[in-house]
């Protein structure tokens, strides 16, 4: 009968009635189980063995989530901040990391505040340390740890470092310079950095690719 009602477009919307109706229907259906039965809250009724059995579909019109299903309930007396947006990286950075992690080209990513947030395994080969070992840190601090210098052995100032230029001036930049990797090896590297804009006015960080010369 319920099926007929359902197909006729009749909707059961009162939870209490639906529960009673369900019990009647299950009894009519000659339910094999005996003993306590219950609703798991999802339109399935549990039989005596604990197995879940689907209720007649027409009874599934209205659901109330039991209090036990509510996670992280908010304090109604004090409206807390909605979402800490900074808890999640911008989608562009998430996608950039996924791209970088699949590249054989050494690649790093920094956010809009100049924090190094990721570099890939290929980059780890060049700098001599994995990102897992390194962790997030200010990009300038990380770069300085490799003593970047010109071919004439003069210190490469931040305003000539491609990543810093991309961060500050929001344009692409390229430079070739020497570093001393974390493993103590002196290397010449070329770096190209470019800004990442999610929208015309939304700068979210930079990406830099580099390789050994």
């Amino acid at each position, binding site marked *: 009968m319920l099926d007929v009602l*359902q*197909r006729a477009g009749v*909707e059961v*919307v009162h939870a209490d009635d639906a529960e009673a109706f369900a019990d009647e229907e299950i009894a009519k259906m000659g339910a094999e189980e005996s003993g306590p039965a219950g609703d*798991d*809250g*999802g*339109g*399935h009724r549990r039989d005596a063995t604990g197995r*879940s059995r*689907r209720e007649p*579909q027409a009874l*599934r*019109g*209205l*659901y*109330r*989530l*039991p*209090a*036990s*299903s*509510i*996670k*992280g*309930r*908010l*304090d*109604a*007396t004090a*409206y807390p901040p*909605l*979402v*800490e*947006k900074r*808890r*999640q*990286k*911008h*989608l*562009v950075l*998430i*996608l950039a*990391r*996924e791209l970088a*992690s699949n590249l054989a080209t050494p690649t790093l990513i920094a956010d809009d505040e100049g924090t190094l947030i990721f570099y890939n395994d290929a980059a780890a080969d060049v700098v001599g340390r994995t990102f897992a070992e390194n962790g997030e840190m200010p990009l300038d601090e990380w770069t300085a740890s490799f003593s970047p210098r010109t071919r004439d052995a003069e210190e490469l100032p931040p305003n000539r470092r491609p990543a810093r230029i991309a961060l500050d001036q929001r344009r692409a930049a390229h430079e070739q310079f020497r570093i001393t990797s974390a493993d103590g090896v002196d290397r010449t590297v070329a770096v190209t950095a470019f800004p990442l804009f*999610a*929208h*015309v006015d*939304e700068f979210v960080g930079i990406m830099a690719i580099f390789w050994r010369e």
Partner: protein
Amino acid sequence: VRLKIWGCRGSVPTPGPDTILYGGNTSCVEVCLDNDVALVLDAGTGIRRLGLELMERGVRRIHLCLTHLHLDHLEGLRFFAPLWDEQVTVDIWGPPSPLLSLRERIARSFSPPLFPVDLGDVPAAVTFHDVPREPWAIAGGRLAADFVVHPGPTVGFRIETPTASVAYLPDHEPALAGGVAGKTIDWISGASLANGVDALLHDAQYFEDEYQERIGWGHSSVAAAVSYLRAVDAGRLLLFHHEPRHSDRLLDELEERARVLAEGHGPPPMLAREGMVVELP
């Protein structure tokens, strides 16, 4: 918070004898926060019936939040009765695009040869907004939007009241951004929206084997949806955006699969169903 599902089918409307139980209308969810103001998520074909009901209820103030402008989330808008009433005010919120304004993009579907009436001739007072980057308030609830992994500019929404929270990510393929395994929450697409919500409406269009043939199409497998549920530690999972080829029988199997996968994580997942009402405390 009271949610009513007016459409949960993905991609294309699928009326017919095989889809009676879960429905064939495309995405549309009503979030009831206030009797005088309607908050609507997406404008798939489900919005047509909702529009008629809103007119009967005498609702004259409507906020419509669009996750994106793919046709299955927009095609009901032209037949949304409140748009054709000059006493109604509609605020439409949607994802920004670097190319065209929200109004310009929606206007394409209100123009010949697709439709005989120009958007400018719609009687209701309609205002278009790019979703703000920071949370904002509507009808006693607070909303947040953020971009999520799906082809083209696409956002998800989080709605909170002082007592409950819900996240709506109907079209979402977090696996394309590396999935959730081993990721901290700050590296998971949409996590700022879904983290810890009481109810999560999430894309679960495919069985796992189907997904293998559709990677990159912007949708999730049921396994990915459950993994996401666990990663963001949400409460109830409502499986959404049903594959058009899935009959009611197959959808029952999908729900069972989700329940097996989610064993041990709070309340069992449920399939969204047209006409379903979910009440959160």
